């Protein structure tokens, strides 16, 4: 099988510092070298660092990684907008690219002229472009603005036209960056559908996104980049899982050992315990979990009201244990000790959660310890399921697992 895109030991370095030089700086620099003065250390950013991979024709391929990992640079190199510092990239066939809003468009030209220009740049004949014209305009949904310069378009219109150009002028290889995330939901849906169509027609897709569900459902294979290096390469679902794990791990790590203090009361540690009382670092799904808040009170406190909440990253806890509701506040605490809160049979999906907590004063409910995140914890296990976005969807959506099953009535073929 032939490869549509090949990266061979590609490196791309940017020199940091000023955007452009004045002649004076270079003269001063050259004089400095002659006289033997040390040059100011120049910051070199490695956007890509000896990256090699190949994408077979017809594969749908995803590039993943945190911001600044080099994903966009890789796309720019493949579309010849920028050149590698060393190494070689080979691309077979016509390349359609949507890398940023406005990629491939001349701001001064009208929508219609841009369609022609892009077609010419892709090497299509005027007739080929004409025959695709209506399709492009319909997809871009820009109707009356066709004769206006693109710089007068809203960014949404520019984006739609850009995608329509890249995806409808018969590209053999389609490069799509994050950009589509700017569009509204309806447009994003149409983009993903169009990409799916192209993949089914046997075109090659290189997709960069932070939308893990889109990657998982659209791409066969993924490569994970970090600081310009490849850290994982494999089936998209596995790479998505690896990447999300990595993100979680860095969250948990960053959070190690913090103690929170309030007026006369400190929560010095938060530990997790299983049903036998042994200390654990991960919770077992479907089993009881005890959260132990270790406190130190500088003077006796009457009726402190403890609260513990679970949060999945969205605003507000999705589960709350509060003495304000159950009325089980201790009469008084003093010195050092702990308060246990046990959740029975944790019905949570495997992933990382935030544990929040706070302590209020019994009289008047003023805060002794502000409501805040105390730590992260993981619910152990693997996501199971054969759906098209099983991994990413269950890791980014509703956390609570309720037993359920589907049933079907008339009009459903199954």
């Amino acid at each position, binding site marked *: 099988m032939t490869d549509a895109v090949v990266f061979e030991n590609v490196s791309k370095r940017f020199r940091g510092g000023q955007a452009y*030089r004045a002649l004076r700086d270079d003269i001063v620099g050259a004089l400095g070298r002659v006289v033997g003065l040390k040059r100011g250390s120049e910051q070199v950013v490695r956007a890509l660092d000896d990256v090699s991979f190949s994408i077979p024709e017809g594969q749908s391929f995803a590039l993943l990684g945190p911001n600044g990992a080099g994903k966009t640079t890789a796309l720019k190199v493949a579309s*010849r*907008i920028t050149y590698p*510092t060393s190494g070689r990239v080979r691309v077979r066939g016509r390349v359609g690219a949507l890398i940023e809003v406005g990629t*491939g*468009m001349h701001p001064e030209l009208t929508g219609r002229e841009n369609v022609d220009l892009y077609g*010419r740049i892709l090497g299509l004949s005027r007739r080929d472009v004409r025959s695709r014209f209506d399709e492009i305009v319909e997809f871009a949904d820009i109707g009356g603005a066709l004769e206006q310069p693109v710089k007068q378009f809203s960014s949404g219109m520019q984006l739609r036209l850009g995608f329509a150009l890249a995806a409808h002028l018969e590209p053999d290889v389609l490069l799509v960056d994050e950009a589509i995330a700017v569009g509204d939901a309806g447009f994003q849906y149409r983009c993903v559908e169009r990409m799916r169509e192209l993949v089914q027609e046997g075109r090659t897709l290189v997709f960069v996104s932070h939308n893990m569900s889109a990657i998982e459902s659209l791409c066969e294979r993924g490569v994970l980049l970090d600081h310009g290096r490849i850290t994982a390469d494999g089936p998209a679902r596995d790479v998505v899982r690896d990447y999300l794990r990595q993100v979680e791990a860095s969250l948990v790590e960053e959070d190690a050992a913090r103690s929170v203090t309030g007026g006369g009361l400190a929560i010095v540690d938060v530990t997790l315990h299983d049903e036998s009382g042994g200390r654990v670092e991960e919770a077992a799904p479907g089993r009881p979990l005890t959260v132990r808040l270790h406190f130190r009170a500088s003077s006796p406190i009457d009726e402190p009201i403890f609260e513990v909440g679970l949060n999945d990253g969205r605003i507000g806890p999705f589960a709350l244990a509060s003495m304000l509701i159950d009325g089980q506040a201790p009469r008084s605490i003093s010195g050092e000790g702990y308060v246990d809160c046990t959740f029975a049979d944790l019905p949570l999906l495997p992933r990382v959660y935030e544990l929040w907590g706070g302590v209020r004063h019994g009289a008047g409910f003023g805060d002794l310890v502000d409501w805040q995140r105390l730590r992260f914890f993981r619910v152990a296990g693997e996501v199971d399921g054969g759906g098209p976005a099983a991994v990413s969807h269950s890791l980014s959506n509703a956390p609570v697992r309720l037993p359920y099953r589907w049933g079907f009535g008339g009009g459903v073929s199954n």
Partner: protein
Amino acid sequence: MPVLEVVGGPGRLSRESFAELWHFREVLWAFVVRQVKVRYKQAVVGIGWAIIQPVLAALVFALFLFRYSSVPSEGVPALLFTLAGMTGWTYFSSATALASESLVTNQALLRKIYFPREVLPLSGALAGVLDLLLALGVLVVVTFAYGIGPALSWVALPLPLLLLVVAAAAFGNGLSAINVYYRDVRYALPFVLQLGLFVSPIAYPLSVVPSSWRTIYAILNPVAAATDSLRRIVVHGHWPDFPVLLASIGWSLFLLLCSYAFFKRLERGFSDRV
């Protein structure tokens, strides 16, 4: 299916560069048309600028130089003499300036789409040709007004025009590439062009240059060869000095090739540095 190779390291001028430029000829044309449209759409006097500039400058030179100094004008009316000079010069200086700014002006485009970058400075040099032709039209009208009729030698007119375009492309190409790295070009160029106006035989005849230097000077300074030829052809109705004119065209083509090679060497850094 065409295979595209993107290789690291500095680029170089090769046969493929020319093939690619040919492949993108319609893109080049689109940019030329665009620049012409934009220039006149945004100006109140519009296309009139193509005429006003050389005519006013020629008037000023004619008034001051020939009224109050003793510069010879080859025995033709002073206005006609300076207008013939300014016709070529106005094109050369504005085309060179436009071409040298082209990469910086279109930086958004450099970062968003691929095409051979020389398309931009070349389109800058070509976009001025319409102005040049209009100014030439004015020169012809003024020539008639002085009672000088057309001559057979006018068929040689395309040669000095070609020389001017090649020279503007050569300078514009190289300067546009340098401008990406050193914005000093923007400030230095108007000054250098101003000097150029005085070291070229625009407001004085070529015969002012000492005869031992005249030939080599006219060849190496393409504006000198072009201006002198224009004058001989239109104003005097003579044939141009063909050996000098052709040698200067050859020299300018050589310069264009050198600046193209220089441009190709730097081209790959443009989108990162602009």
